[in-house]
């Protein structure tokens, strides 16, 4: 738009409309709270006892730097009462304790068999913030009242762990009887490779579990051949008698790791050219029993540790026990000639866990040095040799011509 066109537009009747369009949505803001808070316990489990009054405390923790307006509500079939339900916590007040009171109904039919969930919602808003610009973080506290089922009803959680390669594998089956009848539970577990190959069959023993109570079956297994680092699977089965339905079996599955995945990372020393993108060949040999999606984080830094450039490779599947190439591209900033350092860290792309690392020297070369000039003596020698050669050739030509002439 030249000056003439601009002047024409300024005097045009549509100019106010143009200004209006520019002003639309001058500032689109989202403002949420600067809230940081916690609630403990995050959940509470109680077992139904008709007509009793249960009371427990809930801690609201202000771990941020702002005062908070806290509002607590309860919703669900249990009519829990929280007191105080509204209060303000100053930034300095770290913890406020509130009381949750639950009057359990005398009439069991008011509850469903099994878990009855009351959700207690704790909302924290920065204190004094205008509603339009304030924000909120909400945390839920789940109050669960168990009305035991008729008979025996066992739920469980399987956990297996081995702190490092060669250590015994501890298998724990945590059990809860959500029924009202006591029962005897017997369990067994198998340990499997990721490919499903069975490695061991382990008896977990027996436990008598009263109605609405907890127990566990725990056993350690020391394999004859130490388990190699890797991921494994445990399957457990329990068997118990439910007075209502007879012999019952349930199965549980858990994966567990022996040791932690690691990789031997190798990086060659390279020469860098300022302003160019350098290709850095990396290899990672994975010490784990199944593939892991990995990537390499590459950092170029100077001798003082100052970060100069960084990049990440694409995610690549690292094969167990094999060297996998990872190609990194490093943008080389304008650098003085000299020695630098490349730090390469290979990460598990899914978990961010470090698998291994390596360092390599990186050199930025100076400008190419000119080729050495021949000395005067050398030049003379070359010139004299050339003259001799030319003289010899000339003599030979003259002699041959003379021989041809009659």
């Amino acid at each position, binding site marked *: 738009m030249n000056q003439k066109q601009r002047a024409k537009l300024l005097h045009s009747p549509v100019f106010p409309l143009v200004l209006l369009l520019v002003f639309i*949505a001058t500032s689109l803001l*989202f403002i949420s709270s600067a809230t940081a808070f916690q609630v403990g316990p995050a959940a509470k489990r109680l077992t139904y006892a008709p007509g009793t009054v249960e009371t427990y405390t809930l801690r609201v923790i202000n771990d941020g730097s702002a005062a908070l307006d806290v509002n607590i509500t309860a919703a669900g079939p249990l009519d829990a009462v929280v007191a105080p339900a509204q209060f303000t916590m100053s930034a300095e007040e770290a913890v406020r304790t509130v009381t949750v009171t639950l009057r359990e109904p005398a009439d069991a039919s008011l509850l469903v068999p099994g878990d009855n969930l009351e959700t207690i919602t704790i909302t924290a808003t920065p204190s004094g913030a205008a509603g339009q610009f304030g924000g909120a973080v909400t945390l839920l506290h789940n109050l669960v009242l168990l009305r035991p089922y008729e008979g025996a009803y066992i739920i469980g959680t399987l956990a297996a762990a081995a702190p490092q390669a060669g250590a015994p594998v501890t298998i724990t089956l945590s059990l809860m009887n959500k029924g009202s009848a006591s029962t005897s539970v017997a369990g067994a577990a198998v340990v499997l490779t990721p490919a499903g190959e069975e490695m061991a069959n382990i008896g977990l023993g027996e436990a008598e579990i009263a109605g609405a109570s907890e127990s566990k079956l725990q056993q350690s297994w020391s394999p004859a051949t130490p388990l190699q680092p890797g991921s494994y699977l445990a399957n457990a089965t329990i068997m118990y008698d439910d007075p209502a339905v007879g012999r019952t079996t349930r199965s549980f599955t858990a994966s567990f790791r022996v040791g932690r995945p690691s990789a031997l990372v190798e990086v060659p020393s390279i020469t860098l050219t300022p302003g160019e993108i350098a290709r850095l060949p990396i290899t990672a040999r994975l010490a784990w029993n199944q593939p892991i999606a990995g990537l390499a984080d590459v950092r170029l830094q100077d001798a003082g540790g100052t970060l100069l450039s960084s990049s990440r490779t694409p995610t690549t599947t690292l094969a167990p026990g094999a060297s996998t190439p990872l190609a990194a591209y490093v943008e080389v900033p304008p650098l003085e000639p000299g020695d630098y350092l490349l730090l390469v860290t290979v990460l598990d792309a899914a978990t961010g866990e470090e698998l291994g690392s390596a360092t390599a020297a990186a050199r930025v070369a100076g400008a190419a040095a000119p080729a050495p000039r021949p000395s005067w003596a050398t030049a003379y020698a070359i010139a004299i040799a050339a003259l001799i050669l030319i003289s010899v050739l000339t003599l030979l030509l003259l002699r041959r011509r003379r021989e041809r002439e009659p």
Partner: protein
Amino acid sequence: MARASSWAVAVGLVVAFLILAFPAGAAVFSCEFKASCAANETGLLRVVNNTNGSNNAHAQLMNDSGTAYNYTLCCATDATHVLNNNCSNANRTVVLNLSVTENAHVQVPGATPAYNYSACMALSPGNMSCAYVNTTCAANYTGIASIASSESNNGLYNMTNAHIANYTFYTLSVCCKGGNSPPPVPVLVYPANNNYTVFERNITFQWQASTDPDGDPVNYSINITQGTCTSYNAANITTTNWTSAELCVDKTYNWTVKACDPYACSAWAGTWNFTIQSVAGLTLLVNNTNFGSLNNSDTRNTTGGAPPPFNCQNSGNVPLNVTFKANSPLYATSDLGNSTWQYKARENQTGAFDTGTSQMNWTNVSASYANLFQGLKYQANQNSAFIDILITVPATEPAGVKSSVVTVQGNYSG
């Protein structure tokens, strides 16, 4: 009744005396000069004087090939221990040095110049230690001999070039203590007893060091038990702390520690208990974003970092399912629930949540809570995630500042 009480007090005193006099692991141990040792006794060395007696005598090694001297210093212990006089035993204690293998003067170990031959004793299980004092032996030591000489060793007499005699004969007593005193019961420190609001899931258990009375190296065993969750025990811990695997929340654990030297262990410390309280916590590290000036139909989002996305961190100790909603519409001409305002989940720290079930694609912001992050982790370096925002200014939206309030809600599924 009074008589019964007196009996009870008397029995209690006797038991207390026995406990104090014979601490756990200590061996009953004694030595005396005899013409020959009994089958259950072990000879330390042989002695004889010029009148064929055992006082003011010269010494002979037990394995000397010459004619055996008249008297042997025979040592015995209780039925639970074994004595051995072999100096090549790794557990041996040098009781005295000898100048030669027979007709020898004796020397306290450590005196200089050191004699080349030794009379040793080893106790199994446990160990033996000897002290050389110019008085009677201490209560927990057994006097086995006495020695004397007129030669000074660094200003001390009787230490070298000495004759040997019965324990009561000379001033310098050779006192040995058989057996082992285990280290004292460790004092537990952390987590404190009855602490029901422990936060960290991987607890570093701490206790005070136990100093072994015999100066032996001490290691510790820890036992952590819980009725429903995995119980742990670890041994041969050489520091005064031990970090557990991840423990369960809202379960009461018992824990205790004992101290061991190479021969025996103390009793377990009194059991303490603690509970890791489940804590749900959310922090919005980046809690506002500003899209600046936009025109109608313009579209912007936070994926490039300008403006920044919301940054949500799980600050508790349990995983959270996080949902997201807006408290009010953003525009005058467009309600919630359409493509003019959308959100999605994005990892800030790799592996922070389950990307398979979280809201990874743009979806319309709703007035009711909708899925954002599933299983937002609480572990350090894996607990931070982004909430990306995308806006498109409606074509007919009037000018003005547009704002709204968003709420994130965290729920521990238990």
